[in-house]
């Protein structure tokens, strides 16, 4: 029990006067800082967004003039009216293939890690995925170059394999995280019904996580769609329109942008800019869609 000596002795009714006192030195400093903080954060946001706005603006300004039907409808090999169709079509073949290969494996690995692995394994593989995620994509290309390409020559298939090396950890990490968010109570409910372990995972857990899995797939796809370095020495790029021939070289949108931007002819550089618009539009659209989905689920 506090004695009178330790409790504050102030007259009753002093509270109101204390509220009205002007701010002291320490409070004044804090007020100044509090007013500064919003300014600083707004500035930081502007600095962060500025490159994105600059990129979009530049690409549009430089690329819109040559963004025409010819670009989209003709291949680069077309002697009279070259375009970028070979690149568009190439991306649309290699990236889905890489998604099936790398994304599929990543999905399975993520399921294994989340549902069946012990904690030691999980720690080890967690680290390995971190490493893979951080490995520069040119190394993926180098790896496939020194193995597949050395043996069989450059090919679209090699390009897809190189892309899948990049997409695998993206999908694996996304899968593992999404599955971890499914509450244990769901798994228990399923087991308590007499449903076996793997059936539980397949039909109940994966289904519960399907929204997140779709998001992970979209992210992996966007990642693979925008990668250039892995394709430099695997699929190498090609001016010819290649549909279906996976053992020859094939172009891709980012490859096209890179290669054509370095050509001496101004016309081709302009085409590179236009192709960049298409590439940027696709990748941005996917990323925005992913964001929109996650906002929807949060509102729910």
């Amino acid at each position: 029990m506090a004695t009178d000596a330790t409790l504050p002795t102030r007259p009753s009714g002093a509270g109101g006067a204390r509220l009205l006192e002007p701010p002291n030195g320490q409070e004044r400093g804090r007020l100044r800082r509090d007013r500064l903080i919003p300014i600083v954060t707004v500035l930081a946001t502007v600095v962060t967004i500025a490159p994105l706005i600059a990129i979009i603006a530049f690409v549009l300004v430089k690329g819109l003039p040559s963004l025409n039907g010819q670009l989209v409808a003709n291949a680069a090999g077309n002697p009279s009216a070259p375009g970028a169709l070979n690149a568009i079509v190439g991306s649309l073949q290699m990236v889905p293939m890489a998604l099936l290969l790398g994304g599929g494996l990543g999905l399975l690995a993520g399921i294994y890690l989340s549902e069946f692995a012990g904690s030691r394994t999980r720690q080890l593989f967690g680290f390995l995925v971190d490493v893979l995620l951080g490995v520069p994509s040119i190394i993926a290309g180098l790896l496939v170059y020194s193995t597949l390409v050395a043996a069989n020559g450059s090919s679209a298939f090699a390009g897809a394999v190189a892309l899948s090396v990049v997409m695998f950890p993206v999908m694996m990490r996304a899968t593992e995280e999404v599955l971890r968010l499914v509450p244990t109570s769901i798994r228990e409910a399923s087991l308590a019904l007499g449903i076996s372990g793997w059936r539980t995972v397949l039909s109940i857990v994966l289904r519960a996580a399907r929204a997140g899995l779709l998001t992970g797939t979209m992210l992996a796809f966007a990642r693979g769609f925008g990668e250039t370095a892995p394709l430099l020495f695997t699929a190498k790029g090609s001016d010819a329109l290649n549909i279906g021939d996976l053992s020859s070289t094939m172009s891709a949108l980012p490859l096209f942008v890179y290669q054509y931007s370095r050509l001496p002819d101004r016309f081709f550089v302009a085409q590179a800019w236009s192709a960049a618009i298409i590439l940027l539009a696709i990748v941005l659209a996917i990323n925005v869609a992913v964001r929109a989905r996650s906002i929807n689920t949060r509102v729910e």
Partner: protein
Amino acid sequence: MVGILGGVMLAFGRALGETIAVTMVIGNIDQVPGSVYEPGQTIASKIATNLGDVTERLELASLIGLGVVLLAVTVLLSALVRLTARRFATVHAY
């Protein structure tokens, strides 16, 4: 604090490995640049520029060797991120 440090290291790793953006502007001159305004080279840009025209085995081997160095640095960086995250997590158990 953990997250910030980890983020910085991850960004560093990302920048280490960035190939195309760097290759396009760095000039691909094998020199240690005298100032930041002179052309230079990174491992990634060297590989990107030279791998296509490799003719001798030694040249190929050395490019791949460069790749191994880059890979090793990346792996070490990832390991460092993991370790510091764990160290900080146990110190500031929140």
